[in-house]
């Protein structure tokens, strides 16, 4: 019935409920209240029918009518009292459902935050940022919309239909069966159309994510687009995806529009059948005019919820495809998987050991994984605790990737890395992060003050500690040039600072943790040489008794290190001290020669 590719509505919903178990809490009582509330809507027509039948004696036209006003009033009073109770029950049910679902959606959001933060960088890179954000914002919103309207409609109307069906059966079971039999195929029709509706809504949500992704590029790349006057061209692309979204949504609403009146038409057929059979049977079977009229209105009452349900079916489908996308994200495993049974490192010296480490990135579309596409191949090396190591190599040789593996942003495809004798994947994440920090080339700063960016790593730090941190790395001169000091706002991604200044803040931030192992991935590439020298000298002082791995963009850094690792196309080709390597023929001495000549300003 549904296309095999996508999970059906019910399956998605039940998986959704499974993912957010709090949704189920107290649902039984809410359902009961909803039943009582819905019964209020049936009570009134039934009482009215009874009142007219018994209180107002029907008579042959023209002759006198006997009216028992007292009976009518008594019955109506009873109905009014029941109505008050039912209204209170309904109110409570709606409010309970709403509060429960909002708190469940809150739980779901938190779960998503947590989960998305734990996804591997590769998964982050594969998903467009905009669509990841959409998962926790607009997709959860579709659920919220659903629970506050659609879910409620399902609850109340479902209850109503059951109650009305019961009353109808009591009234006249044969007519009741007739109505139910006629309405049954409607369920089939609805399910058929619904399958198409699901596909249409999935298409439109996909188009929506596309639109957001394209808009995100237009926004984040605004400077570049402006510099090359390409804004208009990219704007047209966004407009195109906006048009596609419009097309898909229009198509989905058209299917919805065709679906809606099917309830209407089935209703008309059911009522016609009741009229026809009722008239045909006449009073011989004990049917009265009043009873037939009453039954006709019960039939309308029975079908009315279907109209209301089709009214919210669009919304339901939007919510179901939103839920499906959320479940899709939740089903991506966290990467790298957290250590299940963490091992404490204890008093071991924090030596780093790499054993046959090989690494492949996830293949791009159309790429086959062969030996040559390994970004790192069979790296073997032991770094004693307290060593100053420089990693050098051409751009693209795999230096950053090595840093990512050491800091466990990814696990090696094969081989093993251990620190202090414990495999990386058995070290508790928090312990690892306190022990080892990487400072990247393009650091990320939050759009907040400098102080807030520093406190990101050390929430309780006092202002004095923060200021001292600048002094410790010999940056007090620069710090003093900031008019607002710690309270300076750095702007989006730190854009109010110069690129070099961003790197300085990131270094101060890392130095606050004082990790045992510090990895600097070209962390000072945009800093001028004079500041860099002062800074690294200060860092060296701080790093006595710490391992520092500097991925070096200036060979002067390598010259100062205890040990130099040379990478070439993912292979560790040379390993030794600067003095040993300069003398020996090989990649390093070539690099150093060209470096020396490049630092000679005379061309």
């Amino acid at each position, binding site marked *: 019935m549904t296309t095999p590719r996508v999970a059906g509505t019910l399956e998605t919903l039940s998986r959704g409920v499974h993912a957010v178990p709090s949704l189920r809490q107290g649902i039984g009582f809410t359902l009961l209240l909803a039943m009582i509330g819905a019964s209020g809507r049936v009570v009134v027509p039934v009482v009215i029918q009874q009142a007219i039948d018994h209180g107002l004696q029907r008579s042959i036209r023209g002759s006198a009518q006997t009216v028992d006003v007292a009976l*009518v009033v008594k019955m109506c009073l009873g109905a009014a009292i029941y109505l008050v109770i039912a209204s209170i029950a309904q109110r409570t049910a*709606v409010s309970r459902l709403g509060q429960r679902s909002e708190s469940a959606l809150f739980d779901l959001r938190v779960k998503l935050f947590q989960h998305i*933060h734990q996804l591997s960088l590769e998964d982050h890179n594969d998903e467009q940022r905009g669509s990841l954000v959409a998962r926790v914002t607009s997709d959860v919103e579709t659920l919220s919309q659903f629970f506050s309207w659609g879910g409620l409609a399902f609850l109340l109307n479902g209850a109503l239909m059951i109650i009305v069906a019961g009353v109808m059966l009591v009234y006249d079971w044969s007519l009741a069966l007739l109505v139910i039999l006629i309405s049954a195929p409607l369920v089939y029709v609805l399910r058929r159309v619904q399958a198409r509706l699901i596909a249409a809504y999935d298409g439109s949500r996909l188009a929506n994510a596309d639109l957001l992704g394209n808009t995100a*590029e237009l*926004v984040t790349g605004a400077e570049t687009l402006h510099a090359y006057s390409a804004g208009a061209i990219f704007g047209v692309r966004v407009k195109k995806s906006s048009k596609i979204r419009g097309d898909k949504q229009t198509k989905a609403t058209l299917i919805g*529009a065709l679906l809606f009146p099917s309830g209407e038409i089935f209703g008309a057929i059911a009522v016609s059948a009741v009229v026809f059979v009722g*008239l045909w049977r006449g009073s011989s079977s004990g049917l009265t005019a009043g009873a037939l*009229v009453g039954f006709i209105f019960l039939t309308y009452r029975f079908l009315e919820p279907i109209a209301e349900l089709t009214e919210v079916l669009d919304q339901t489908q939007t919510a179901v495809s939103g839920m499906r996308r959320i479940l899709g994200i939740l089903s991506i495993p966290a990467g790298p998987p957290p250590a299940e049974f963490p091992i404490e490192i204890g008093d071991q010296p924090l030596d780093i050991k790499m054993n046959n480490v090989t690494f492949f990135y996830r293949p791009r579309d159309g790429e086959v994984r062969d030996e040559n596409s390994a970004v790192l191949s069979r790296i073997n090396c032991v770094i004693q605790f307290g060593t100053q190591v420089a990693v050098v190599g051409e751009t693209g040789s795999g230096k950053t990737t090595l840093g990512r593996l050491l800091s466990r942003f990814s696990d090696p495809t094969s081989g093993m890395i251990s620190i202090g004798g414990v495999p990386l994947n058995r070290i508790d994440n928090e312990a690892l992060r306190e022990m080892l920090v990487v400072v990247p080339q393009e650091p990320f700063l*939050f759009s907040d003050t400098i102080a807030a960016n520093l406190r990101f790593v050390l929430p309780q730090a006092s202002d004095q500690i923060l200021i001292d941190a600048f002094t410790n790395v010999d940056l007090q001169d620069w710090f003093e040039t900031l008019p607002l000091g710690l309270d300076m706002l750095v702007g989006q991604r730190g854009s109010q600072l110069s690129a070099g200044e961003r790197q300085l803040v990131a270094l101060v931030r890392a130095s606050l943790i004082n990790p045992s192992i510090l990895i600097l991935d070209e962390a000072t590439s945009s800093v001028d040489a004079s500041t860099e020298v002062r800074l690294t000298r200060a860092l060296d*002082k701080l790093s006595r008794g710490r391992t520092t791995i500097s991925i070096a963009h200036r060979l002067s850094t390598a010259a100062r290190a205890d040990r130099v690792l040379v990478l070439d196309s993912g292979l560790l080709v040379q390993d030794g001290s600067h003095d040993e390597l300069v003398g020996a023929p090989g990649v390093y001495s070539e690099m150093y020669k060209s470096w020396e000549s490049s630092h000679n300003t005379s061309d």
Partner: protein
Amino acid sequence: MHDHSSTSGRFRRATTLIRSLVTYHPGLFAISMAGAMVFAVCTVGSSWLLRWIIDEVIIRRFDTNTFSISQTLTAVGLLIGLSLIRACGVIVRRSFAGRAQWRTAQSLTDEVVDVLVKQPPQWHRRQSTGELLTRAGVDVEASVAVMAPLPYASSVILMMAIAAVGLISTDTALGLAATAVFPALIGLNVLYQRRVDKWFDIAQGELGLLSAAVHESFEGVTVVKAFGAENRETERLAIIASRVQNARVEAIRLRSLFEAALDFVPNVTNICLVVGGAFRVRSGDLSVGELASFIYMFTLLVFPLRLIGYALSEMPRSQAGFDRIQSLRRSPIFDDPRSLFTHGSSSLVLDSVSIGYDDTNILFRNVSISFSARSFTAIVGYTGSGKSTFVESLAGITPIFSGSVSTKDQLTSFVFQEPFLFGTSVRDNVCLGSNFSDEEVEWALRIAEADFVQGLPQGFDTIIGERGVGLSGGQRQRIALARAVIRRPSVLILDDTTSALDPNTEVKVLRNIKSGLPGSTVIAVASRPSLIGMADQIMFFDQGSIYGPTTHVELLIQNVSYRSLMQAYEEPQEFEDDSL
């Protein structure tokens, strides 16, 4: 209803909202309205038909006890026929309402996109990415959400009007009592909207904040991971999410009350009508049949009114979203700095220019420089000395404060210090939508020494991840360089764009540029002596002053600060030595 002015203000805002939304695609909306009117007329018609069937067919059948097949078939045929017409009305109403809704969403998105494209970088730098995305996404969807139920709501109003006439003509007193419930329900709606608006506004606002915060948090995922701050970030975001939740729960409380009242009022009215009707029947003013159909007509008509709640419930959300889009659209478009550049005979001339970010943060004053054609200028300075700001001003990315800039032609290419790559193909990143031949793309990649592109699975048609995440820093820089040179600019400005390249490659790239673009004036922020050595002239930035352009040797002799910076570049070992 005490605060009348605010109610009418709200009403005015609502009508303005609807009017503005409708003007985008009035035709589609009108067709949908026509469908809605057919639906309304048929709905009332079917209640009349039912009354006729009850009075003339059913009661007669049971009174006379004769079954007339022709009359029965007429009744059934009319019932089904009318419902078919009504169904068509519904299809037209819904499909065109949907079309109007999403075409309007498309128009709104296009308007937001136009603003995003027109606004220059200095505007973009002040905005939060997440918030701008909220405008184009959540806010657009919210704005148009009110449109779909609008035709339905109008048809309900038409139905009420017709029904009121019908009810009153059946029995004036009862009819007036029954119709009084319609305005009562609408009043209830208004009252509810007024109370609930505030919470919807809060929720929508918090949702915008949440979206921005989430965007930033995911964007900074490397930092979050690097410092093991996943849990802290989750907690921080959870606080914002809980504010969304709280506002929503308040709204739901109000709504549950409203929903219950919406059911309660017509039902109680119904009961009262029976009691009142009983008296009217006793006094002989009304027949039992008339009372019965009166009540049934009332029930049939009052229930669609419930659904009007769906329409009105979208109003506050739509209003909030639309208002925010409007304020984005109305924000003045900043001047494109380049549009203020004048035409001159020399390739690039600054005439007493002041450069900076705002009145309190002016980095350089009264700078006058002329860059002659085909010259190669290196810019050197300490971190934060204003090198990027200066070259961005030359390229018309950062506006200048005063003075004038003139260029011979507007053909300037600028490469940012941190290049931005789009999540499309390498070719698209180089061409940025302009038409360049394969040969030109290859040529540009060759100049930029980006030979690694050939090693990618589909060559320069390989799709690279968002922001070029699948590439190393130096690879990104070279693609950005190719993007600049393919345009054969008359002025090429490089903001330290070769920093991630090894010195060998860097020198090669600059030689390629010199030979491949012999006519271009090159201005490059330099962080390596090799590049400085290749330049014809040097500008040195130090503490708000610009020295030069002059030669390297001249600067070495005259400027102590320059000398010590150069020493740091050339003799790193010495520093190490004196630290020991």
